[in-house]
């Protein structure tokens, strides 16, 4: 067993950490207060990341990306996770599912995404289909070589800035061993397509620096050439390419928790009450001990799952465990850090309240904690026929 990092991995970690601290942290307060990243800051960060050759580090080399393996990518995501999501997202990692592009799609979507020229968003969730995404109502009917799409997606991150959307749509039903199920097809839809409207979404208390949107399809006509993969293979594409997305949430949670925790330790050592550092009270120091232990546990779970992916081993349960534990851990660490800061922890003058608010969404998106538990327990019970 080898727990150390290679020199390359260490350099990736050091470089990204350095970048995050120097190029992202300084903009966090302004992004939070404005509710968006000023365009000139976006351009500047994106260009720097392109110059460093780190843009699309997640995409395999054969497609023109950085080709990092899962462990190294997880370390990179951990470091990026320290910063506000609104800023770290500019350190572009186009959706892996674009690797499924074929023919003209490669030049139209994959390559521009890797070069930072086109931004994507992914649309699965609907008002009536969240965790149970397969129950989606958005549907497409075939008309000659075209498809006519009707329906609504919501909570779609960055759709307002995206050049195109990767949209999952029902295209019929099929019989499966567990009853009839919808056939799901993945479409690439340009933002200016007639019948496709991107509307303002809701105000989110987590991650204030960017928006979620509502996508409306009203007799939106797209050609078969816009299908990623084949008709009906949407979930296969998603399983092939998007499985690891949940792991990036786990990695983010570890990085964010570590940043928050470091501030908690420093505060506990500096803040004096009753004539001594509050860290000298067991009521505070034991919190720190628990937090450190949980962060490390989450980190090992996360890197362990990434390692399994690199070995080509089944990792669904491991990823679910990492996502579940790391995001729940982040909730506890940010809450306890806020407690250690006392009243100051709640004030927007310090980033602690932001870490605490931001942590909340991580237990919900990319599969709620309950859905992760469902995946883990299904893996335990299904082999026994239960």
């Amino acid at each position, binding site marked *: 067993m080898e727990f150390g990092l290679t020199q390359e991995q260490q350099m990736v970690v050091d470089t990204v950490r350095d970048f995050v601290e120097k190029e992202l942290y300084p903009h966090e307060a302004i992004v939070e207060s404005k509710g968006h990243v000023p365009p000139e800051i976006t351009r500047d960060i994106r260009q720097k990341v392109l110059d*460093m*050759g780190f843009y699309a580090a997640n995409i395999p080399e054969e497609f023109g990306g950085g080709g990092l393996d899962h462990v190294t990518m997880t370390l990179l995501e951990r470091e990026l996770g320290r910063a506000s999501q609104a800023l770290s997202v500019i350190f572009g990692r186009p959706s892996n599912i674009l690797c499924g592009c074929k023919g003209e799609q490669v030049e139209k979507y994959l390559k521009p995404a890797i070069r930072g020229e086109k931004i994507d968003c992914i649309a699965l969730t609907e008002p009536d289909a969240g965790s149970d995404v397969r129950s989606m109502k958005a549907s497409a009917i075939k008309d000659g070589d075209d498809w006519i799409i009707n329906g609504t997606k919501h909570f779609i991150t960055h759709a307002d800035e995206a050049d195109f959307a990767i949209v999952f749509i029902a295209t019929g039903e099929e019989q499966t061993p567990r009853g009839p199920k919808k056939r799901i097809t993945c479409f690439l839809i340009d933002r200016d397509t007639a019948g496709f409207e991107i509307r303002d979404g809701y105000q989110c208390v987590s991650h204030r620096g960017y928006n979620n949107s509502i996508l409306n399809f009203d007799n939106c006509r797209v050609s078969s050439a816009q299908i990623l993969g084949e008709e009906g293979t949407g979930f296969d594409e998603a399983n092939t390419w998007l499985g690891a997305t949940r792991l990036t949430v786990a990695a983010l949670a570890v990085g964010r928790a570590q940043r928050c925790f470091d501030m908690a330790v420093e505060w506990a050592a500096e803040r004096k009450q009753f004539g001594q550092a509050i860290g000298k009270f067991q009521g505070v120091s034991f919190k720190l001990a628990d937090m450190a232990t949980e962060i490390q546990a989450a980190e090992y779970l996360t890197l362990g799952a990434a390692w399994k992916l690199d070995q080509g081993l089944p990792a669904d349960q491991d990823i679910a465990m990492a996502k579940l534990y790391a995001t729940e851990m982040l909730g506890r660490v940010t809450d306890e850090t806020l407690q250690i800061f006392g009243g100051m922890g709640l004030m927007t003058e310090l980033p602690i309240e932001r870490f605490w608010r931001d942590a909340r969404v991580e237990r919900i998106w990319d599969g709620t904690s309950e859905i992760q538990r469902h995946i883990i327990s299904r893996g335990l019970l299904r082999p026994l026929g239960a």
Partner: protein
Amino acid sequence: MKVLVPIKRVIDANVQVRVKSDQTGVELTNVKMAMNPFCEIAVEQAVRLKEAGIASEVIVVSAGPAQAQETLRTGLAMGADRGIHIQSDEDLQPLAIAKLLKAVVANEDPGLVILGKQAIDGDNNQTGQMLSALLGWSQGAFISAMEKDGDLLKITREVDGGLQKVSVKLPSVLTVDLRLNEPRYASLPNIMKAKKKPIDATSPADLGVEVAPRVKTLKVTEPPARAAGVIVGSVAELVDKLKNEAKVI
């Protein structure tokens, strides 16, 4: 022209340094280490010289324990071509390092040595100047700009009270100041290439240099906490205090 860039591994500039409880030095366990920031500027300058076609090869060299190799790899990831590791667990002091570098210069025959003006651990600001004296080469310390002009280098030095422009003859030893350039981040392709670039291992014994320390550290302590300041009411009061209390004017 080969360019030699000596680099040092030090405590990361963002880490708050703490004195060890036995006062023999500063705490190094579990502390993040990084390349000395002035050395980063030196590497950046050398890589720019190569990109401009002035340097043919950039060699980074570091003297120190096994972990100095990590710092060399970082230099390689910034674009240096190869590294030399002078393995030693001794407390290497500026004169010893200058002698080691002199021996490396004799082997490599560079046209230019670029160093940081000082390392942020000891803040000695001596190695470059000593190396230039040992080699009998021209020196330009604290440079904030440089331009090649035939056999000469036109440099700008940051000196007390302003900027001094001088020309130095090659070969030369330069030490760089903060404003010379903004070092690049290591690029992902260069990080991946760094492993394939060679690092030659050598030692003080191989180089025939005696490195035993000549200066002994008796005790390391925290600087005294600064006393609270006072706000003066007027310029006249300030001048009076500087004259009669602080006795500095």
